[in-house]
């Protein structure tokens, strides 16, 4: 059997070689060309497609000679804020000790007063004894503790969403969440007054950014309509671009709320996803402190992603994102601040859980906070030379100069004098600081009195102090 197969094989081979001699010319020529091409390919060098402009050595020398090194420390004026800083000693509670002088604290973003709450402190201390100070790794590499999972669970239940994810730094929360979903070629419509963290997230995402005027729904609709027209011209491209709207619940830079019901209508009309940043409105707005969705009575499933930092109302460090499982789970591998950063220290997670407990047990503190905010807003109204910017129930207001002197530097200097005077009279305020060269739309200089619970009596003092300046 195998011998017959062997003979058969030989017979076939002879036939093959015979066919080779009788092959048509065009076929053999083509094969010859292919073999020559293979040889050429084997001996070709690798090269890059982009052309680089090659400088001649002389040009390189010229460039090197022209170069002047920049000083390591750029020349700054003597009154630069980085050179004259205030030193705070002791924990920031109702009163804060600045430069040795005890002042009423209008500077910390401690809206619910949970920073010096005994229960929160004892929960943190118990956790410190149990776990030590830090987790020694990111969430994916031995850095996940049960307190993290518990905090995520509790936050998801509190916000009534499917899942939540914790970040260890508040700024990094929204700055990691946006680039996890929005990539090159995608379009993001963002408000002009978005905070710096959002701007950095957008920059990291490399997407096309379209700014619309602050809280101006007509402007946003115009941009969406323009985008729709472009999409109709190129439907195949439109099918692969993702569109997002990024807004804040309570804006850090202006103190007002976004018109969420209109945004939801625009979302469903133009098919865009909404990312809501609730750092200032979490624990402030809404009946139970659930944020702006509760404030406006909107179903939380309408918002695709809610991101907040826990550094304001929850008196902890870090941030969280909550939403549907399908959306939040993506960040477990793509959220850069989640995967590549050490996880939240367990004592802070335990403190946040305790703060959540307090928020859930006493839902009336939110009403108290809003009442105090309104009181403060009214009390600050009549000050000559300053105007109050912000909603009446917003705990973080801005006091801006009514008539600007024209140059930002002079305004900043004047406000600094006001703040110093207040500091001397026993009220600690801060100026709103911006990285002037980095911000997209720089807000006018202002200072931020922050309203907190339990600060009734201080309002009179503040009032008097600012009147006199």
């Amino acid at each position, binding site marked *: 059997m195998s011998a017959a197969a062997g003979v058969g094989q030989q017979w076939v081979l002879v036939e093959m070689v015979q066919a080779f001699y009788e092959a048509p010319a065009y076929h053999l020529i083509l094969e010859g060309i292919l073999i020559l091409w293979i040889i050429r*390919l084997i001996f070709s060098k690798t090269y890059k497609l982009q052309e680089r402009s090659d400088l001649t050595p002389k040009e390189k020398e010229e460039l090197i000679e022209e170069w002047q090194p920049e000083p390591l420390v750029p020349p700054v004026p003597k009154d630069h804020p980085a050179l004259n800083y205030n030193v705070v000693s002791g924990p920031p509670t109702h009163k804060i000790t600045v430069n040795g002088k005890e002042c009423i604290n209008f500077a910390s973003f401690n809206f619910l007063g949970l920073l010096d709450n005994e229960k929160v402190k004892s929960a943190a201390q118990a956790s410190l004894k149990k776990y030590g100070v830090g987790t020694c790794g990111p969430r994916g590499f031995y850095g996940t503790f049960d307190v993290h999972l518990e905090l995520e669970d509790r936050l998801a239940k509190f916000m009534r969403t499917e899942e939540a994810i914790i970040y260890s730094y508040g700024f990094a929360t929204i700055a990691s969440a946006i680039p996890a979903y929005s990539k090159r070629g995608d379009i993001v419509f963002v408000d002009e007054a978005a905070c710096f963290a959002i701007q950095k997230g957008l920059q990291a995402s490399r997407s096309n950014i379209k700014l619309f005027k602050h809280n101006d729904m007509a402007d946003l609709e115009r941009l969406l309509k323009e985008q729709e027209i472009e999409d109709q011209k190129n439907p*195949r491209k439109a099918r692969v671009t993702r569109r997002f709207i990024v807004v804040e619940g309570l804006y850090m830079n202006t103190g007002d709320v976004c018109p969420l019901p209109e945004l939801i209508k625009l979302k469903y009309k133009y098919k865009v996803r909404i990312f809501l940043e609730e750092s200032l409105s979490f624990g402030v707005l809404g009946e139970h402190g659930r944020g702006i969705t509760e404030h406006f009575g909107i179903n939380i499933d309408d918002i695709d992603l809610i991101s907040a930092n826990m550094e304001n109302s929850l008196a902890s460090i870090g941030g969280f994102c909550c939403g549907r499982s399908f959306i939040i789970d993506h960040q477990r591998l793509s959220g850069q601040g989640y995967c590549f950063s050490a996880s939240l220290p367990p004592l802070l997670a335990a403190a946040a859980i305790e703060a959540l407990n307090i928020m859930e047990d006493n839902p009336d503190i939110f009403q108290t906070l809003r009442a105090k905010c309104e009181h403060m807003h009214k009390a600050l109204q009549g000050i000559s030379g300053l105007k109050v910017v912000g909603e009446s129930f917003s705990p973080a207001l801005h006091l801006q100069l009514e008539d600007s002197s024209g140059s930002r530097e002079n305004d900043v200097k004047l406000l600094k004098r006001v703040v110093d005077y207040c500091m001397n009279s026993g009220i600690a305020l801060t100026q709103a600081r911006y990285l002037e060269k980095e911000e997209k739309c720089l807000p006018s200089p202002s200072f931020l009195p922050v309203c907190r619970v339990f600060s009734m009596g201080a309002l009179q003092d503040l009032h008097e102090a600012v009147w006199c300046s």
Partner: protein
Amino acid sequence: MEIACPINKGISTMFTNILRGLVPMSSLPHALPRVQKLPQPRSSLSWASLTSFPPHPQVMYLLLHTVKGTPFETPDQGKDRLLTHWEQIDYGMQCTSSRKFLSISPVVLYLLTSFYTKYDPAHFVINTASLLSVLLPKLPQFHGVRLFGINKY
């Protein structure tokens, strides 16, 4: 074009010597079906060759030149979302060893097949068309070119 997804690096850098990685990996799927067919002295041998040549270029075309982007998230924010696998190999460098191997292997297969089909004209047409369809997209002049807007987005 600076950062390619790891699977392209996988082809070029993880298996730095192509003889160690790419050659066995791609030789095996060709060799296996042919081993059974070779020793059978049938006149239908030529048709057997026909069935074994065109699938290879078609599959190669599909995997290298049709499918775009990466099968997993990359840290470069979707730079290669619109690039095919071939364009992503070695970060867009042309004529690297992996690219040379992948260009030469269909030609070698074509030469073998035309030998086995005894230079039949009908087979010539089909096989040459398959070969051209898989060789043309690999030329450096065709990098990033999308004809008639097919496969652009």
